């Protein structure tokens, strides 16, 4: 894959925006970790409410389609 050229960008990604992502990621990491701990504590005490939203998770489930692909 590395021998393919990456398409040059037709808009400015912003240098500051490229550099700052490290810091943002660090802050996000701490936040997600502490949320994870809180979640475990809450679920231990049975305090988790099920939310009803079409966009529950950032992760796209793909088991069904993958297995389908393989049988094609």
């Amino acid at each position: 894959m590395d021998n393919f050229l990456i398409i040059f960008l037709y808009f400015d990604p912003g240098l500051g925006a490229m550099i700052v992502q490290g810091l943002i990621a660090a802050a996000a990491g701490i936040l997600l970790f502490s949320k994870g701990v809180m979640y475990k504590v809450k679920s231990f005490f049975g305090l988790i409410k099920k939310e009803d939203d079409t966009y529950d998770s950032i992760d796209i489930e793909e088991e069904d389609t993958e297995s389908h692909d393989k049988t094609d």
Partner: protein
Amino acid sequence: MTKPINTSHEASFRDPCGYMFYDGKILRRAINPIYFPQYNKLKESGFLATLIKKGLLIGHEETSVSEENIIITPEHIPFITNPYEWSFEQFRHAALLTLQIQKYALSKGFILKDASAYNVTFHKGKPIFIDTLSFDFYVEDTPWRAYKQFITHFFGPLVLAKYHGSEIFKMLQTHIDGIPVKLIASMLPGKTKLSSTLYTNIHLLAKMESKHSEDYKAETKVAKLSKKAQNNILTSLFDYIKKLKLNEESEWGDYYEKTNYDDQAFEAKKQLIKEWVLPLNAQKLIDIGGNDGTFAREFLSVVKDVIVTDIDSNSVGYNYHQVQRNNEGNMLPFVSDILQPAPGLGFNNTERNSLIERLAIYGPDVTLALALIHHITLSGNVPFYKSAEFFAKFSKHLIIEFPKREDSWVESLLVRKREFINHFDFYNETNFREEYSLFFQLEKKQAISGTQRVLYHFKNKELFN
């Protein structure tokens, strides 16, 4: 050069990877050789197929393959809504969809090379990604190049809407490439600096952007970011947006409590409209000023494609909420102000079509305009012939309700004119009918029992000649 410039779509000239063009009436996408490696890999790995099957990316058929280009034909979307026409919920879902796709892409060795809000529109009741060429290969340990675009197109406007209301989305009409980060930061209250997500993604970003804005020679070292770190950014943005709510949000539900007629009259009106619309065998219907879609919803089972627009973002939001809850794939709600419809935007004023152009292309068989004319005429000071001209630009059959001067809402609108009330003596049925007859042919009229309102059915003179 083989590029069919005269038929290429006005919204796609920036991307070197390909462009959209009209082949007769069909919109197709040409892929240039520079993008062949990406496209082939996206296709062979099943990546595109998975997103399409999941309903996250618009489907397409491969029409032709040659050395010069690959032509694909995307599934037809009857009506494109733009980000400044979405309710808060729609905007939120479009942002979440973009993050989902980027995270999934990353897990498969790709990235979204841009995160423009125009890459998303609403189709079959859900947001859908429409730019098939937005993907590129992921290079290990590189930051997300579209990150800033995601902030200026999605995250910033959403957070601003929380504090200033969804009116803020209209700013995207003047900032076609998103609201500048510095401007977003300056419009947020000081307390937002206390939120680690808002501080880093907006305030710190704005600071860093100003600091590095003069690095013309690109002297600063290239930044690195691990995949895991990037996933953390995506997940934290996703979690934040998922919980985001408008401060001003009103409770949904009682929209029709405010009508000035009783349940019986309401039912009578519904029945009458149904009786008139059904024989027209409409495939496409638009309800202008249609509130939360109560009337248009009556036609979902018989009309293939229904659009409802209203000036009130909250009722559009409530409509969208019902679309989600009831899985109404053929209902599309969006926000618009008829007195100031969305203009043509961008380079040459043609990158984004004006609302009227899009409506004319859509070509609804039936246009409903219920409880609207008194607002256009009396609040907007628009003469009858001018509103008739507006409707005539895109309506074949116009079913329009005329509240007489005796109607309590008309009375109150007139009273508010105070000493100028006499300037509005023209507001009566005779003038209305005469001026609308300049553009339309009167088919039927009938008083709605129990109200001071009359329902008219007009047929467009030009579109039927």
